[in-house]
């Protein structure tokens, strides 16, 4: 009720930082969608451009029948390949933790450090308002942690043995709180969807290359239409590569915002900036 001014300003700044990270994520996702739309427009643009190259009389840029061919075609390739990739990656958290060599910590553990980890996870589940997830320990000496699972309902938290060995209780709490933000905000799902979209764009360039190689290799057919197909393939190939490059840039920016969001949320959940702060310094080798 009578919180000192300093406490109030910390309180407002971590909520403000969360809002800022969410807003920037939204902007970036809008850019990503725009990039895909631009990609579709450019692939469509290739068709009349190639038509102009071949035809003697001027060709209109706007040809609805070509657009109705190109737009759903590109959409289908990008969408289909994305869905395939997402289905490949959308494991439950347990499967990911086991793949990474994690061992589940049983509720009956008698190891003091593991018991403390379970307690800290339960505390942060309460603070974040999500169900208590299964907890895994990775046999790795460095300080590392991750949350895994496509849906929040099947998420798990995994921390390295180094976290248990080198972090204080407050620092461990900060790290676990950071991972709970990834669960609460659906960051794993967002990440997998972006990876899916990028491989969808990459699939476009693969199709471009196939088009290029098969048209060149084919002996039958009129030579100018073959040349057109090779050029179309080359165009789609290059557009796919450039699109995937920008997609990766945007995804890296999204990841950075989600980390800022998770750090600000860790301070909200623990109400202690020294915990996550101290852990980050230890990871960075400053302490």
């Amino acid at each position: 009720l009578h919180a000192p001014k300093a406490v109030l300003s910390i309180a407002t700044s971590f909520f403000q930082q969360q809002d800022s990270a969410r807003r920037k994520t939204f902007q970036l996702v809008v850019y990503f969608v725009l990039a895909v739309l631009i990609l579709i427009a450019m692939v469509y643009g290739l068709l009349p451009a190639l038509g102009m190259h071949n035809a003697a009389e001027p060709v209109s840029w706007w040809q609805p029948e070509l657009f109705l061919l190109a737009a759903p075609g590109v959409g289908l390739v990008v969408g289909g390949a994305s869905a395939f990739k997402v289905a490949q990656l959308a494991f439950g958290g347990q499967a990911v933790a086991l793949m990474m060599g994690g061992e589940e910590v049983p509720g009956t553990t008698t190891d003091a450090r593991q018991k403390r980890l379970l307690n800290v996870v339960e505390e942060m589940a309460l603070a974040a308002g999500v169900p208590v997830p299964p907890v895994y320990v990775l046999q790795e000496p460095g300080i590392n942690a991750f949350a895994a699972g496509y849906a929040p309902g099947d998420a798990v938290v995994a921390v390295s043995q180094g976290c248990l060995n080198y972090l204080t209780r407050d620092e461990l709490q900060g790290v676990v709180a950071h991972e709970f933000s990834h669960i609460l905000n659906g960051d794993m799902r967002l990440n997998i969807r972006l990876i899916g979209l990028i491989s969808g764009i990459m699939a476009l360039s693969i199709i471009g290359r196939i088009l290029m190689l098969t048209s060149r290799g084919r002996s039958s057919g009129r030579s100018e239409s073959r040349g057109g197909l090779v050029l179309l393939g080359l165009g789609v190939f290059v557009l796919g590569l450039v699109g995937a490059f920008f997609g990766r840039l945007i995804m890296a920016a999204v990841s950075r915002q989600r980390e800022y969001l998770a750090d600000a949320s860790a301070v909200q959940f623990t109400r202690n900036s020294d915990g996550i702060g101290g852990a980050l310094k230890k990871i960075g080798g400053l302490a």
Partner: protein
Amino acid sequence: VKLRRHPLSNSSARRLFALSEAYPDLKANQNMLALPEELTSTENKIGFARQAFNDAATDYNIRREVFPASAVAGMFGFKEAALLETAETERAAHKVSFP
């Protein structure tokens, strides 16, 4: 809304730990070693549950007053949510340690 602390308060815990000083076997006992962590965690869980409730209630109270949700809230008579408050003495950290 007021929350009361469980009667196992500072004094009884302190007597237990004082007792353990006199009995080395007791002090070295597994359960006795785990006790400070369990006390800390129990205190934390109460605190974090209260904090999560208050964060959610504050979020609701703010949304309730900001357009467009405020229009719906006013129309259907959404009441302001009360926060859980505790006295400073009850919130103070439980100091338990082996000397």
